[in-house]
């Protein structure tokens, strides 16, 4: 019995926090970065190694999920140990087939009206990505019957379900559903059916036989022609409320941006020479007076040092990780912010002299905020440039209530 589902843990066990700490046999999601995670099963002699160091499983036992842990032997490396969820599992699982992702999975679970106690049929099992979410939804009293054509995938999936402590909740069987339909023993037993097959229309009659009245059907198909054929089959087999959806999640990148708010009178040579670049000037001012602006800047500077120490880690994370850019950018922005802050503080007193030195010429005595109007710092977000454009169409239908 592993830790995959909250309902498997002793929920009323207030006296001990064993369900929230890592123990032998647990599945742990080792998080290095948003695109770099691995599933690890805790064993007495197990070791986890990555480029940052070596971690003994044993040193993780007893720590709460969510902990940041440091590599053994004083290495600089660290990782986070996360409690597995179907969403995290979807990110770490071994792809045996194309899998469904969060948007489609969420829609399927919601639109199939799954809840604890529901009985749901799935074909094919594939990599078991959706299966985990189906199990979560129907646990602890429901059941998922999942079928897969390919024997190897059946074995792999069964082993995973075993390892994740889900055997009471899911049955995986080898069967050619497109050819043979669902087993007769399931007729009239299902609250919901999900099909991800090249020819879902071939299975509609069998799905109708398995579903209870008012039961829900879902088919996933990448191409519109499959949708058209499946819709026709659903109409012909006593389904109603036939609705086709596409759903996607649009990801946003968050950055700190500095926007200029001043249009400069650039054809004035004297002025130009003195102020080649507002930002550069601001930075110079900040740097020159950083020592003086101690109260404001010391905390920030310490943070910057800490970040410098973590540099190796940061660099490594950045490789191959789009999302890591956000972190890096954030770090940069913070550094900038520190500078501007320092500059502002410095400008108030000691910094003034420096500034005037640079701004030689008949300038009025600069005020405290003289550097600020040139720009505004904002947190900006925009959709990620590379996006998933399509996964498939989800056809939902409801079995007509005849009786």
């Amino acid at each position, binding site marked *: 019995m592993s830790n995959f589902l*909250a*309902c498997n843990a002793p*929920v*009323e066990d*207030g*006296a001990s*926090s064993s*369900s*929230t700490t890592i123990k032998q046999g647990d599945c742990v999601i080792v998080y290095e970065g*948003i695109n770099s995670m691995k599933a690890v099963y805790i064993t007495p002699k197990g070791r986890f190694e990555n480029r940052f160091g070596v971690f003994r499983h044993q040193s993780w036992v*007893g*720590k*709460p*999920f*969510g*902990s*940041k842990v440091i590599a053994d032997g004083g290495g600089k490396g660290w990782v986070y140990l*996360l409690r597995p*969820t179907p*969403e*995290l599992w979807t990110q770490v699982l071994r792809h045996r087939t194309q899998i469904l992702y*969060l*948007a489609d*999975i*969420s829609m399927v*679970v*919601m*639109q199939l*009206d799954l*809840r*604890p106690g529901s009985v749901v049929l799935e074909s094919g099992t594939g990599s078991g990505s959706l299966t985990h979410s189906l199990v*979560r939804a129907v646990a*602890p009293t429901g059941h998922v019957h999942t079928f897969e054509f390919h024997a190897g995938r059946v074995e792999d999936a069964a082993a995973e379900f075993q390892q994740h402590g889900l055997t009471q909740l899911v049955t995986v069987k080898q069967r050619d559903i497109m050819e043979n339909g669902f087993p007769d023993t399931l007729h009239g037993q299902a609250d919901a059916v999900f099909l991800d097959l090249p020819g879902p229309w071939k299975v509609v009659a069998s799905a109708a036989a398995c*579903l*209870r*009245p*008012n039961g829900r059907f879902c088919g996933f198909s990448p191409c519109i022609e499959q949708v*058209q054929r499946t*819709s026709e089959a659903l*109409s012909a087999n*006593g389904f109603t*409320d*036939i609705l*086709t*959806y*596409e*759903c996607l*999640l*649009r990801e*946003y990148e*968050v950055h*700190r941006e500095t926007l200029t708010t001043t249009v400069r009178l650039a054809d004035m040579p004297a002025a130009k020479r003195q102020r080649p670049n507002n930002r550069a000037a601001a930075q110079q001012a900040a740097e020159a007076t950083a020592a003086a602006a101690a109260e404001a800047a010391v905390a920030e500077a310490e943070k910057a040092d800490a970040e410098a120490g973590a540099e190796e880690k940061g660099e490594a994370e950045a490789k191959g990780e789009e999302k890591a850019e*956000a972190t890096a950018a954030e770090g940069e922005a913070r550094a900038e912010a520190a500078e501007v802050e320092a500059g502002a503080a410095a400008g108030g007193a000691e910094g003034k002299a420096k500034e005037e030195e640079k701004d030689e010429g008949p300038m009025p005595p600069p005020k405290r905020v003289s550097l600020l109007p040139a720009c505004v*710092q904002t947190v900006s*977000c925009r959709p990620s440039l590379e996006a998933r454009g399509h996964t498939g169409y989800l056809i939902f239908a*409801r079995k*007509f*209530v*005849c*009786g």
Partner: protein
Amino acid sequence: MAADGVICDGDHLVLDVNGEKLSFVQKLKANGTMRVGKYTVSTAPLIGAPFGALFEVTADGKSLQRVLLPPADEITRITDTERDNSNLFDRNTENQKLTQEQIEELKKSGKAGSEIVDLLCSNSATFEKKTEFAQDKYKRRKAKKYITYLTPRKPTARMISEAYYDKCPERVWNLRHDTLAVMLSLGNVAAGAKVLVVEHCLGLVTAAAVERLGGQGAVCATQLDERAAPLDAVRLMNLDPQQRSVLFTAYASSLLKDKAAVERCEGLAAMTTAVPAAAPATIAAAAVTGASEAAGEQAAQADDGKQQAEEAAGAGGEEAKSADAAEEAMEVDAATAASGSAAGPDAGAGAGPSAGGQQQERQPRGGDGRDGGGGGYGSFMPRPEALCSVLVSGFDCCLLAHPKMHPTALLDAIWPLLAPSATFAVYSPWAQPLAEALAHLQGSRNAVMLQLQESWLRPHQVLPARTHPHMTCSGSGGYLLSGIKVVPPEATPLAAALVQHLKSASGGAAAGGSGAGPAVEAKEAAGGEGEGQGDGEGRGRWQVSLWSGQDFGSWCLCLHVHCSR
């Protein structure tokens, strides 16, 4: 057996008319009437029928007739989303042999609309000459005019979500069902979970969480101020006592205080005994919730602007017409709240509890407990063991959908209540505040897997030779910020981590035995970046400090100066 069971007297329902309009019926009465489209029909045929059964309004518009076989023309869901693609050809050439009078006659005869449509087709001079697709189009056009189909649906969180989005999207802050679905996934909400909910979406998020738990685990509907956590959607569901038992209400401030009290006892073994002593603040707060709910909700609405007040007033006027009750159920609900207390925010505050007057105000809202089992909906007292569990271990899921509260501040406030590795999802109709919160969390290094996403949903019409996405669709389902809480390495034992959290959160303030709570800075000590600090003045609110002044726009610098110096 039907997947959703049968309809009983006293059930709540969602009515689906022609697959395109949703409305609510609360506490169905076997001998009542209800509004279906433009008709008022008897409710009797519904009792004992399975949820999801199909009914047709008889052509005289007075009763319902069960439809036992799928309509042959497959038009239970009548959509009309065609772009007129035959620009080149005029189409007003139909030769209908039936006169308008004859059609009226047919309608009065009580014939089913589908029969009338068939008659119209057979009496059209041009129908037979039309292509198959044109015939289909013709039938759909006529069906839309003459047939009213009704499907009573079980009020699941999905149906309620769709109905709310359809009827009053602004009152659920545009939270769409697909976004809610993603939120539940990202929150890892499932049986056994301990879910913290702070929302302002008519209780929709709370209802969805309760439904997913199936009676195992805990859902805390948390209130931040004197406005009660909304539970409208929960009341619309037909929950049994077991399902309902997971839900309790509490003040965020009480939870934080109790958690601090629990932690002060240090050592995990001592906690079970510590809880009863510490619990009262939360339980008392929860008890108050029921009583002040109506008033609080009213205050919240008054605050939200005129529109809702007008709605409530309008519905209040219509309340006499009980035939309209089904149609207007939601507005009536608001009106009830309004009549339960004098209007206006002052009244809301006045109805709130005073230190000595809490107990006598603890009446449940009349009649809401439909089956008499368990407490009424008005008193969602936490079960002591559930409370103990969430206080000791923390919540492992967190769903926030309170868009008028800046997410950075809200996350900061409830952060100590979350267990390490807790999954959280924050909803807002705007991207910008979530982006600011994400930047803030990213800077704090207390969370990983941070994502800002927008759910995109596109319904398609799939018909022979006429397949295309719907011509109009919902423009936005809102945005989600999600992530997973993590804790730094120096706080390895859970208890220590929690103690550290709370020490820094509650500063040097004394235990919450006195009436006046401490104004504290919920600055995260984790990561060694912040330092806790209390001002020790008995001001009646939490002041949430900001890690970085930029996250709040213009006022933040002033705020920061004011708070910490």
